[in-house]
């Protein structure tokens, strides 16, 4: 199949997956919308759907909302990082699901540095985020080394670690770190010079961390597609015996991709913390790790498509929140939509009949062209 057709196919297939997800969403909204009879329910469902799809960036009076857009962009920050982390780990077929706990640990460690380490202005920010990232990278050595050396499932271990991280942080917060003068469990405020400056001061919390995220996207892409190690990671996912027999160190690749993934999730947590908050107050896993998995699947494990996928997910999340406030449909609808899109996206055989048709068509076209050329040369 030609490159053009192949892109066309991926595009149509992606749109079809989204279409199915929205249809499922509509049915569920119809089920939950206000109204005593069917027509009434139908119109309130349509209103709810419009709320979800349009109102994130369009105001009630039909004008474009800059604040809405910056909200969506700000929402992309954490899931870009967890998305990148998941891309790199999944590309090597390492189903490490630790980005969820990773982003929480990164946020927590960064917060501690930002509170207790007196450093000058630009250094504190950078050091805090890097320490947050490194701590998660080091923690990911547990599932990574156990997988590489003993063949223990990285998936089960990373899932278990998520819970351990959450409880351990909550323990530290309750016992030692919480500011007891406050009604809720939170730390003391960060040092003022640790806060990441905002790109736009409208309350969206769109910090310069967004740009750092985009830079990491480019760096991750360069790493995955332009370096020997990135090649090794991708090849391990496609054909692990090949990597082994061609003399690369598979165990090291398995470890490397998970440590890098952990590092990315960790700095994501740190940047989210310093860009959005001024105290640490997460008491449960934030869910960004799971959204990151969806982002990675939508992006086809290619870092370059991560911003697009993250935008889409952030937009839908905001849409679902608005829908729950204005149309009385529970915002958790997002997790169902997310699961449906991602399961169809990842389905290799989804619309394979259509792909078959495209392949046959392009083969026939090529044949016809060859025949024409043949006739021309005969003349």
């Amino acid at each position: 199949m030609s490159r053009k057709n192949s892109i066309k196919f991926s595009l149509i297939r992606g749109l079809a997956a989204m279409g199915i997800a929205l249809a499922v969403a509509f049915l569920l909204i119809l089920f939950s919308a206000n109204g005593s009879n069917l027509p009434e329910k139908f119109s309130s469902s349509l209103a709810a759907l419009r709320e979800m799809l349009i109102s994130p960036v369009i105001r009630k009076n039909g004008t474009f909302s800059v604040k809405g857009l910056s909200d969506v962009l700000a929402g992309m920050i954490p899931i870009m990082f967890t998305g990148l982390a998941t891309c790199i780990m999944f590309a090597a077929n390492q189903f490490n699901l630790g980005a969820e706990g990773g982003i929480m640990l990164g946020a927590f460690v960064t917060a501690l540095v930002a509170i207790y380490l007196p450093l000058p202005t630009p250094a504190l920010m950078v050091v805090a985020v890097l320490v947050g990232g490194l701590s998660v990278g080091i923690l990911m050595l547990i599932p990574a080394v156990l997988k590489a050396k003993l063949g223990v499932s990285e998936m089960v271990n990373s899932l278990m670690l998520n819970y351990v991280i959450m409880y351990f942080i909550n323990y530290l917060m309750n016992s030692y770190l919480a500011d007891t003068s406050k009604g809720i469990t939170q730390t003391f405020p960060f040092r003022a010079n640790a806060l990441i400056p905002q790109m736009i001061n409208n309350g969206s919390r769109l910090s310069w961390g967004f740009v750092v995220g985009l830079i990491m996207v480019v760096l991750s892409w360069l790493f995955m597609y332009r370096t020997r190690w990135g090649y090794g990671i991708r090849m391990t996912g496609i054909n692990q015996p090949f990597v082994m027999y061609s003399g690369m160190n598979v165990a090291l690749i398995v470890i490397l991709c998970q440590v890098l993934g952990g590092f990315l999730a960790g700095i994501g947590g740190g940047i989210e913390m310093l860009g959005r908050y001024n105290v640490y107050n997460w008491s449960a896993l934030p869910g960004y790790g799971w959204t990151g998995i969806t982002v990675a699947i939508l992006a086809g494990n290619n870092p370059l498509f991560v911003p697009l996928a993250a935008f889409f997910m952030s937009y839908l999340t905001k849409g679902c929140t608005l829908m729950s406030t204005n149309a009385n449909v529970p915002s958790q609808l997002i997790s169902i939509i997310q699961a449906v899109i991602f399961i169809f996206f990842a389905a290799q055989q989804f619309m394979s009949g259509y792909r078959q048709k495209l392949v046959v068509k392009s083969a026939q076209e090529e044949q016809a062209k060859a025949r024409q050329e043949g006739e021309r040369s005969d003349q």
Partner: protein
Amino acid sequence: MNIFTTDFFFSIIRIATPILLATLAAVIGEKGGVSNIGLEGIMMMSALFGSLGAYWTGSWLLGLVIAMVVGLIEALLMGFFAFKLQTDIILVGTAVNMIGSGGTIFLVKTISNTVMGQSLTSTTSLITKAHQIPSISIPYVRDIPVVGKVISGHSLLTYIAFLLVIFTIILLYKTPLGLNIRSVGENPNAAASVGVSVSRIRYITIGIGGVLAGLGGAYMSMYYAMGWSLDMVAGRGFIALAAQSMGGGEPVGSMLAALVFGFAQALGIKVSATGVDSNLVAPIPYIVTIISLVLFALNQRRKERKRFAAAA
């Protein structure tokens, strides 16, 4: 303080039951080459519909049946995506777990809002003792000193769970279906070459797992706790995967592993009763999982070394 009382051993069995049910699902799944990491999500969904079903029908038995049916449907849907549409089964499982966490709260809010006109976030307020799976006091056994107190008086489902261990052994090793499941798990091409319908066997494998996980979910909301609440399964579906691999994929070994987790958690509850921060105790089962997976892998490796040495 003596913590090893009959109550303590009783609670090990009580805590291990849902893990055991999910573990059996994992054992059968892995034998058939179907790694179902969606057990967690299936348990969540079945827990919700089991308790809602019991409330609607007024009968715990129908609630239990509904939980099993929901587990079965969800598992077969997973099968459709994994086998028919060729989605990586780990991703299908992840999607099921997402729905199990966020989707259940959506459903409970929506259903309660539509049916009762008020949006609930748990079913605790609906459930009375009559909706719960009954406990069974076994005559004669309960009179045996010490042992009677430990093994009598459990939920009906607990006894079913331990009977299901025997059922699993018979299914896998004494029936033609079990032979087919194992052969598809070991070598699908060989199985297909002798006329076994690989996809049919896979659907059956994942379906049985769905029903078992459904029972595990029902136990959570219809016995262990009063009614369904968010994230109540709390990783038990994942712990079951660990128990399966610790038990070497065999029913009896995996049952013992499930009991080890029951022990770890029961111990945790005892310790937190002495005033230790529960956040320090709650992660114990998860840490035990990691440590025991490592010990198991080391043990496997030593066995393999021995085999090599014997061969050489």
